[in-house]
């Protein structure tokens, strides 16, 4: 283990504990730590909507901008003032959730392999978001805007690329022209459009990307910003005056921390810090030693083009093409794009050909993982159940990233760990029950914690009949249990198994399979 891996591992465990702690009162649906990206989008939409209104009333001249915004805040506090405050606070929120999102993905090691594209397209968002946010302070053209514009110009002048120092634009009131203000407007309106484009790129290789958080979380967040805007409205400083230096400022540290940092150190230091950080983040996917697992393989003779794997793949790694097999002419076949494939096996769980009830001696399915073929699972399940001698036999299906199921093996329990719980075809649950199991426990990461985004959700939906392929309704529900637990929460699985055992000892509870 490298020296860097120790603090990262510690950081990951701390983050996971924090997520679990938030889960208790909020649940996965309301837990902001599980929806950081979606919250970022929510803040972006809030900024866009409030910004459109602010732009309508903004006087975009150098002499009129301050008065128009100040008047809005004081004379129309109930609408314009609230929207102005929400605009600022949403920008603060955007930056906070963006940094938390970055930290989470880094700590969880989600930057290499098939995730490289999303990581690399996320890195430019950092400077872009800060540029958009900082530029907003200039448009108001109060003492804070003056300070920020001058500090930014001094920072840019730290690079010897401008023939004339940008700071000369702020030497006197005469140099701050309407033309310069047009540039401010372009920065604050043009860059967010570029940001939206970059965000679209960022989620290109993610299926069903969450661009809006769950409704309850969204309402809670909007309500929080609304209350904050009413209790603590954003107001302007004194108008900018280029013959006077700003002195005491109510600085927005979340957005503008870089200015004091520069005056505390130097422009060169901040350039080195920003450039070095961005370079390190860009190189990170190549610095890690994550080995790539073999990707999913399509077996043409068993793929009927049903499109379920296409619908369920979390990383858009599957497309459909005309089927090459003659007797299936006119149909489609799934095509796996190796660069995008996470080798999670969720497609295997979605394939109708993965059912173990098929009578062929060696189970071959339409799409499979070479390193963990579905036929092996059927074979091991059959052998394992035959080896158990207890009166009540229990089967546990788990995953490699959630709570560890291997330690659960006992005289009455066999456990199987797959790459992702989403790899489990639900028919295997019924197969296990018909093959001698008294009950089945299906486990995986907590809701919102799935290593492969959607595996836990799809499995839960398949088992409850909300998603194809679903567990047949004839399976007695009391003989199937689920327990969603992260790594380190193995005690929850033990409790779930004990509950199943107790249930099985009650004679009236164990319904026969129909």
């Amino acid at each position: 283990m490298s020296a860097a891996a120790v603090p990262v591992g510690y950081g990951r465990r701390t983050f996971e504990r924090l997520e679990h702690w938030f889960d208790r009162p909020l649940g996965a649906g309301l837990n902001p730590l599980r929806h950081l990206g979606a919250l970022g989008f929510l803040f972006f939409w809030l900024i866009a909507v409030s910004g459109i209104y602010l732009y309508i009333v903004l006087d975009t001249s150098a002499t009129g901008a301050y008065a128009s915004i100040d008047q809005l805040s004081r004379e129309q506090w109930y609408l314009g003032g609230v929207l102005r405050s929400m605009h600022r606070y949403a920008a603060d929120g955007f930056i906070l959730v963006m940094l938390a999102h970055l930290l989470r993905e880094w700590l969880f090691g989600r930057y290499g392999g098939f995730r490289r594209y999303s990581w690399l397209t996320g890195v430019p968002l950092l400077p872009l978001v800060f540029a958009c946010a900082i530029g907003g302070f200039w448009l108001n053209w109060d003492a804070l805007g003056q300070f920020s514009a001058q500090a930014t110009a001094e920072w840019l002048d730290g690079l010897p690329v401008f023939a004339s120092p940008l700071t000369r634009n702020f030497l006197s009131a005469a140099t701050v022209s309407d033309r310069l203000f047009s540039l401010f407007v372009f920065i604050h309106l043009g860059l967010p459009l570029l940001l939206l484009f970059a965000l679209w790129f960022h989620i290109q290789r993610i299926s069903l990307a969450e661009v809006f958080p769950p409704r309850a979380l969204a309402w809670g967040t909007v309500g929080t910003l609304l209350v904050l805007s009413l209790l603590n409205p954003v107001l302007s400083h004194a108008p900018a005056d280029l013959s006077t230096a700003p002195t005491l400022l109510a600085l927005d540290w979340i957005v503008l921390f870089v200015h004091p940092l520069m005056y505390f150190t130097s422009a060169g230091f901040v350039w080195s810090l920003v450039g070095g950080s961005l370079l390190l983040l860009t190189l990170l996917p190549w610095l890690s030693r994550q080995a790539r697992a073999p990707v999913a393989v399509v077996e043409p003779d068993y793929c009927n083009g049903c499109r379920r794997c296409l619908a369920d793949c979390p990383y858009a790694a599957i497309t459909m093409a005309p089927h090459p097999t003659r007797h299936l002419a006119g149909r489609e076949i799934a095509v796996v794009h190796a660069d995008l494939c996470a080798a999670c096996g969720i497609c295997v769980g979605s394939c109708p050909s993965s059912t173990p009830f098929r009578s062929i001696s060696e189970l071959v399915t339409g799409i499979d993982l070479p390193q963990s073929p579905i036929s092996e699972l059927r074979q091991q399940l059959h052998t394992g159940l035959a080896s158990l001698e207890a009166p009540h036999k229990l089967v546990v299906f788990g995953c490699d990233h959630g709570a560890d199921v291997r330690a659960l093996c006992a005289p009455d329990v066999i456990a199987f760990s797959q790459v992702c719980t989403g790899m489990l075809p639900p028919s295997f649950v019924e197969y296990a029950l018909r093959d001698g199991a008294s009950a089945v426990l299906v486990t995986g990461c907590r809701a919102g914690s799935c290593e492969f985004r959607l595996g836990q959700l799809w499995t839960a939906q398949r088992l409850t009949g909300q998603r194809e392929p679903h567990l047949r309704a004839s399976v007695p529900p009391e003989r199937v249990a689920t327990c969603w637990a992260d790594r380190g929460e193995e005690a929850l699985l033990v409790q779930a198994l004990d509950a199943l055992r107790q249930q099985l000892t009650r004679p009236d509870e164990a319904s026969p399979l129909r």
Partner: protein
Amino acid sequence: MDTDKNTLNFSRLLAQVLLFGLFGLAIGVFSRWPAYQALAPGRAVVKVSFTHHGKPVSECHQLSPAELAKLPPNMRAPVQCPRERSPVRIEVDVDGQVAYRHAAMSSGLSRDGASAVYQRIELAAGTHQITVRMNDDARQSGYTHVRADTVVLKPAQILVIDFDSEAGGVTFK
């Protein structure tokens, strides 16, 4: 049972309100606190800034007929002047002490552009004797432009020291 459920729901609701409140509090606080002292009380700022083309680094050269004959016909200008401009050297003394000294190189690949300077100097508010010396001609030793003045700076005032050849050289604004 129902009481337990209601208590649980109430606890969850309370915790949710608390967490959302903490989030709002964090944004509300750090979007304006702690106040930042961009310039200490009783201080003023002097900004030394100009963009100015230095003089050519050397004299123009009168070509002899023999030298002209070696040139292509379309390039036979009788006088050739160097493109490169002199770096602009500047010294700023405040109350007899050197506060800033810099030699600004001409911009451009051929060093034929303007020299640019920007320097921020913080001073205590009050009366100061400021002397600016500048040399924009490498052919001359010493200084080509000098200005000395006594200025009274108010707290937070910004004094801009610029160069404007039409206004007679170094300016204090």
